[in-house]
């Protein structure tokens, strides 16, 4: 596609989806940040004529979108793949109610787990919840299909699932601009037979769901987005999403059946295509979703016996799987030190995890966010991480199992946004069921990991305008927590003292570790002290190095160099602060017992 700045834009998949949603006349959109979906809401919030919000979690976001649809306007809910698990409850029943305005539920899957705890294939939700699902192959298609999704939703009275993956969301490509459709007028219309899902009414709606899916099967046969691309017939490929791109690169001359709608499937189109080709191969990332359903149609095909069922695909892997002889040798990788992500210089989480790392008998039940990096050495201070909100409840379950043994030995750590997402229900459970665990809320004032989205405690809405802010101390006290303590995690001595005291108390206690994210503009712009190393005083104890701050490095020396520098002969090295990287948090000065780290202005 050529680029003409009059008519086209250079957009990521997520930007293109925001554009598509706006053009489709979406008037209400709600979501919870989660890689790789976050930028959709972020972009959509910059358009006029559409209400956008960050919801505290995906279930809330989807319910808000359902409400907007019930009021007769087009609506969108966005989430990452695991967010659909949270939103599954309303999703399965919204399948029965349908709506009035078009309702699109976007799931951003993460094959390869670039930024996720699992790589579930959410196409399975389409089958399980009896919903149509569209899947684009690139940003240009993503924009067009979002409009199509709204149309299908209204025509068939159904929510439409819209699935993207990391290589759609975070891929940039040329996208054509369109214009916005005429907006629907919202209204209240009482439709109890459709909207009140108690058993007798739900049974009637279940019949409608069955009819709708049959009608959608017929529509799948003529849907523009399902198409055959003619080519050589020795091998024919059925594919969808980003896998389509890999087939086009690896086998440009082959016949391809490209599915833009991956559920329900066009049975006749697939059967006709299968009859034309000598060998039918299904090329799809993750689960054998298309393969299983195509085999169930009685059509012979190959799939996962060739194509990996784990991780991302690419054109190389597809070629290697199908035509291994065409593969040329490539250079072997070199052995290099790994470079995993790390907490930033000045990150408040570091101080808290440093203190936890000294409490060796304590099990740290972790959660999802930047602070999950507290697991990595040298801090190594997180012992479990399952899903959003699970820190509080897993700690409680462990403590109940351990009984007396567990007293003073189980804590949970959870970020401000994650606590709002699903930590609060766990805390209520802990109070109600008399837990003896400590919940540490890492309140850095923002949803940091996904790139600084505001949340209900931040005091700003999605557009950055002032909003009501939840007060954590009041909230915790209101649910019945008697001991709520706030600490500044940069003050390591005080934090250690408070943690020791609160963890020892045999009841539910809350410690709020509060300091803003080091990357927040308000922190970046503030005048901060710069710390520097007075290397003459350094004894090589490594206390500061073991904070794992990217601004501090260890410099090994030989015994001769040690003597030359005036150190003891057996001193193995010294620490050095890279001043341009220092964010002035002062944690290193707190842990240095030898006056080797000082503020610049104190010199």
């Amino acid at each position, binding site marked *: *596609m*050529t*680029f003409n700045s009059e008519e086209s834009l*250079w957009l*990521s998949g997520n930007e293109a989806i925001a554009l598509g949603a706006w053009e489709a006349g979406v008037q209400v959109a709600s979501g919870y940040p989660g*890689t*790789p979906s976050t*930028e959709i809401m972020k972009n959509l919030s910059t358009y006029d004529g559409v209400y956008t919000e960050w919801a505290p979690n995906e279930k809330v976001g989807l319910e808000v979108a359902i409400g907007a649809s019930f009021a007769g306007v087009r609506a969108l809910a966005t989430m990452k793949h695991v967010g659909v698990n949270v939103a599954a409850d309303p999703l399965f029943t919204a399948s029965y109610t349908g709506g009035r305005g078009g309702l699109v539920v976007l799931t951003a899957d993460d094959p390869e787990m*670039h*930024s996720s705890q699992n790589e579930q294939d959410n196409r399975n939700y389409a089958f399980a919840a009896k919903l149509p699902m569209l899947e684009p192959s*690139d940003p240009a298609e993503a924009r067009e299909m979002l409009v199509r999704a709204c149309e299908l939703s209204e025509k068939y009275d159904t929510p439409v699932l819209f699935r993207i993956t*990391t*290589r759609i969301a*975070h*891929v*940039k*490509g*040329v996208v054509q601009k369109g214009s916005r459709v005429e907006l629907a007028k919202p209204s209240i219309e009482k439709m109890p037979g459709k909207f009140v899902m108690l058993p007798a009414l739900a049974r009637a709606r279940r019949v409608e769901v069955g009819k709708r899916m049959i009608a959608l099967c017929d529509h799948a046969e003529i849907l523009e987005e399902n198409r055959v691309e003619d080519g050589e017939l020795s091998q024919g490929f059925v594919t969808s999403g980003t896998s*389509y*791109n*890999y087939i*086009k*690169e690896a086998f440009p001359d082959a016949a391809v059946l490209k599915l833009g709608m991956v559920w329900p499937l066009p049975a006749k189109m697939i059967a006709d295509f299968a009859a034309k080709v000598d060998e039918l191969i299904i090329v799809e990332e993750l689960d054998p979703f298309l393969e299983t359903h195509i085999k169930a149609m009685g059509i012979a095909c190959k799939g996962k016996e060739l194509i990996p069922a784990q991780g991302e695909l*690419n*054109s*190389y892997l597809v070629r290697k799987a199908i035509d291994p002889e065409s593969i*040329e040798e*490539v*250079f*072997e*990788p*070199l052995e*290099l*030190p*790994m*470079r*995993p*992500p*790390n*907490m*930033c210089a000045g990150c408040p989480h570091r101080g808290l995890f440093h203190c936890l790392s000294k409490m060796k008998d304590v099990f740290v039940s972790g959660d999802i966010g*930047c602070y999950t*990096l507290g697991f*990595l*050495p*040298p801090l190594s201070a997180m012992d479990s991480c399952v899903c959003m909100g699970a820190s509080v409840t897993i700690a409680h379950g462990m403590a109940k199992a351990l009984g007396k043994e567990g007293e003073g030995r189980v804590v949970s750590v959870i970020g401000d946004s994650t606590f709002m997402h699903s930590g609060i229900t766990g805390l209520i459970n802990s109070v109600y069921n008399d837990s003896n665990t400590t919940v540490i809320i890492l309140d850095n004032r923002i949803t940091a*990991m*996904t*790139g600084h989205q505001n949340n209900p405690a931040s005091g700003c809405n999605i557009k950055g305008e002032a909003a009501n802010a939840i007060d954590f101390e009041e909230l915790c006290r209101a649910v019945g927590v008697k001991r709520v303590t706030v600490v500044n995690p940069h003050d390591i001595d005080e934090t250690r003292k408070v943690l020791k005291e609160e963890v020892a108390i045999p009841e539910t206690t809350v410690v709020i570790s509060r300091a803003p994210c080091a990357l927040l503009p308000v922190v970046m712009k503030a005048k901060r002290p710069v710390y520097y190393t007075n290397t003459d005083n350094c004894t090589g104890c*490594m206390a500061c*190095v*073991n904070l*794992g701050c*990217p601004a*501090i*490095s*260890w410099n*090994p020396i030989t015994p001769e160099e040690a003597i030359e520098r005036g150190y003891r002969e057996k001193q*193995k*090295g010294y620490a050095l602060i890279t001043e341009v990287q220092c964010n002035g948090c002062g944690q290193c000065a707190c842990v240095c017992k030898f006056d080797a780290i000082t503020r610049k202005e104190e010199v």
Partner: protein
Amino acid sequence: MKQSGNILFSGVGGQGILLASELTAYAQLEAGFDVKKSEVHGMAQRGGSVTAHLRYGEKVYSPLIEPGKADIQVAFEEMEAARYLPYLHKDSAVVVNTQKILPPSVATGKASYPTGILDELRNRGIKVVALDAFAVARDIGELRTANVVMVGAMSNFLAVSPQIFLDVIDERVKEQFREVNKKAFTAGRDLVYA
């Protein structure tokens, strides 16, 4: 003019890979190519090793470069020039900023920073252009333009005229940073004679 190609950007999260790859993409678009670019956001940005894949041609489907198919690599950090060796081929050109950023295992004394990395590449026939982009950026008076210095150096390996890059900077960079970025591009470009 070469009708298609693959450019791999590699470095450490926070080094400005995004802007460098964006300028390059816009220059290729202006030159009439189809372009796709793939990035990874989220967890990878916290000081971890990051890449951006840029592919251009008449029609580009896959946003990912295949192993053995990167024609040019722009490496913003020395070790990150070698981490993606399987993506290179013997005629690849690697433009590398000689800055060293210590990964956590090296910074905490558990491992040492490897030596002779660039020779490992040269020994395989790969053309390596090493430059100190920070020194160039410092001379220009704005350290943050090191990434654009790298784009300038890399542009020698592309058929797209340097004027297109300068026009893209005019169009896409905020007014107050335009002139300094154009200077950075030109300084980078003049460092290398491909």
